[in-house]
């Protein structure tokens, strides 16, 4: 069999490395499984690069991967700022790629590069659903906290936008820095405003701190997070306080899909030390998509780009994938989750949906 190289880029060091390593493991799993498949035409080799979640490092990594002609396809980027810097390079070197985690709309919609695809949804879809769902639950007033990274600021922007559409009211919003420890000042002010819900746009570590400190100050409002907190480590981090926290994530719930179950089993069997985290399935799906393409059209960047451009209703462990003309997966269903007994449970399956348990303030 001929050897073919594919690549993965993600943050393997630094604050969000947990997600990055989970993504890398998942991509690696996809390659391993493919290599174990006797019917595969090629033998694949995975090249991984660390972006440190820093644009300059990410651009270096992108250049290294893109300029290596033996690499045919790439699954890359969890951090949007890095993705934004790197897309130009993929275009320049005609490297077909799929994003596996970055949620900023501009990554796909900010350019016309046909090389760029994304299997996960953008934060637009997510906040649309989130705002609608929460107002439907009868909540009226919010206080928003967001970290001042592109992720947090983006969520703040879109959530505010969609909440206004659905008639919710934001009493105040607070930008916090992504390494902040203490939120008592912001939360004390929030407490005074007495909102129904505290929305947090940001990632798990801050989400954990904010949830824990709400308790300290005796804030009883409902806590709602963006996709960034939908991880097991959020639950581990806040302990019992996680009960009833809601969050929203693109993609169909993995364990509900036949392929998803398979992924989870295989991931466990492969014996990775780290968890796959929320975006592991996307990395896995994206890598499989690339591998499918290479199997189909051969190890050729241009052909692979063309192949990806035509993807419609492609089966994957995160549901069907269909790219629009910006390479954005349009079937990005959003799943609503709630924590029940120390587990993220799909809302519709939860006791909250049946009314057996109630969200805060209800």
């Amino acid at each position, binding site marked *: 069999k001929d050897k073919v190289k594919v690549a993965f880029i993600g943050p393997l*060091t630094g*604050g969000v*490395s*947990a997600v990055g*390593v989970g993504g890398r493991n998942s991509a690696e799993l996809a390659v391993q499984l493919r290599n174990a498949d006797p019917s595969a035409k090629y033998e694949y080799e995975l090249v991984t690069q660390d972006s440190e979640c820093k644009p300059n490092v990410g651009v270096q990594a992108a250049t290294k991967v893109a300029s290596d002609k033996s690499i045919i396809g790439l699954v890359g980027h969890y951090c949007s700022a890095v993705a934004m810097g790197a897309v130009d390079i993929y275009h320049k070197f005609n490297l077909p790629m799929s994003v596996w985690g970055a949620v900023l709309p501009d990554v796909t919609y900010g350019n016309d590069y046909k090389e760029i695809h994304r299997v996960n949804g953008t934060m637009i879809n997510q906040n649309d659903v989130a705002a609608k769902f929460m107002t439907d639950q009868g909540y009226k007033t919010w206080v928003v906290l967001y970290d*001042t990274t592109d992720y947090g600021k983006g969520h703040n922007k879109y959530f505010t936008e969609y909440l206004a559409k659905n008639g919710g009211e934001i009493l105040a919003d*607070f*930008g*916090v*820095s992504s*390494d*902040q*420890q*203490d939120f*008592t*000042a*912001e939360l*004390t*002010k929030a*407490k*005074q405003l007495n909102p129904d819900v505290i929305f947090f746009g940001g990632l*798990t*570590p801050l989400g*954990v*701190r904010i949830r*824990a*400190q709400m*308790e*300290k*100050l*005796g804030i009883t409002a409902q806590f709602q997070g963006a996709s960034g907190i939908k*991880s097991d*480590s959020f639950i*581990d*981090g*806040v*302990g019992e306080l996680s009960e009833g926290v809601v969050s929203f994530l693109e993609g169909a719930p993995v364990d509900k899909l036949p392929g998803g179950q398979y992924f989870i089993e295989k991931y466990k069997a492969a014996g990775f030390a*780290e*968890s796959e985290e929320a975006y592991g399935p996307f990395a896995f799906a994206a890598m499989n998509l690339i591998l499918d393409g290479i199997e189909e059209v051969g190890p050729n960047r241009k052909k692979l780009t063309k192949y990806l451009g035509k993807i419609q209703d492609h089966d994957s462990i995160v549901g069907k994938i269909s790219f629009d003309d910006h390479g954005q997966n349009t079937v990005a269903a959003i799943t609503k989750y709630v924590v029940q007994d120390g587990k993220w449970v799909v809302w519709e399956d939860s006791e909250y949906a049946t009314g057996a348990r109630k969200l805060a303030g209800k």
Partner: protein
Amino acid sequence: MDVGLLGQFVVNGMMLGMMYALVAVGFTLFFGVLDVIKFSHGDVLMVGTFAGFSTYLGLTAIGIDNAFVQLVGVLVVSIASMALLGAIIARYLVLPLKSAPPLNTLLVTLMLGTVLRESIRLFYPDGSNPKHFPSLLPTDAWSFGSFTLRADSVILLIGGLLVIIGVNVLINRTRLGLAIRAVAQDEETAKCMGINFKMIVLLTFALGSGVAAFAGVMNGLYYNEINFGMGLLLGVIGFSAAIVGGLGNIYGAILGGFLFAGLQTLGAVALPFASAYKDVFAFAVIIALIAWRPTGLIAEKTSERV
């Protein structure tokens, strides 16, 4: 703003300030004894917290679940292990470099901070994710209107205060403190006075690191959340606080710590345009303060003669 709310801000700010002050005291100590800045201080704090956390897990695992016993166990293990770590750092990284340019020590300890942080991230089970630190203190709370006072906060504040007072007495009133100050100024002459130089340096680093571990456990108990990156910013802020207050005396560290916490709280609460600017605000004030008092708010007594 009503009084209750104001009170709430004050108590929150004091907790934060106490944490900063404890870190700053560590910096002051190291600076005091060897004129070095040990930048891994924040990370030692973090490791101390994880050591405490592991102790808690261990105690729970062997069936000890009395909160008080657990608390004592957590504190003892955490402080003792960090004191040991501090001494090891002093012995193998700081002392060998004492004749090199002072910035080198800074760089080495900075790198050591990275080593500690990365080690926890990579080798502690699931170390890259935040951990839930247990509440081991009574959680009674008293509410007065919009003001909630929790028993654990009060206990932590008092504990922090006692530690700082203890360190201060140790430095200024005891023979050990005298030796520490002497070693800081002139190693060779201190030796000639019969001071065991190495021992004093190791002790000081053990002391400072023990205080850091205490601050770390306090941090964990207060926020109920710990993570491998928690020490980085705390270290930078603690260092800034020690400097703004004025190096070389513990009151400066305390003042700096509370000042910094006050600025951040004020920034978050009172900035009309956007609370996201609160760090910009706090650091800008710090720069202005240093420009105004270039050797710290409680200025170091000058002794240089021409």
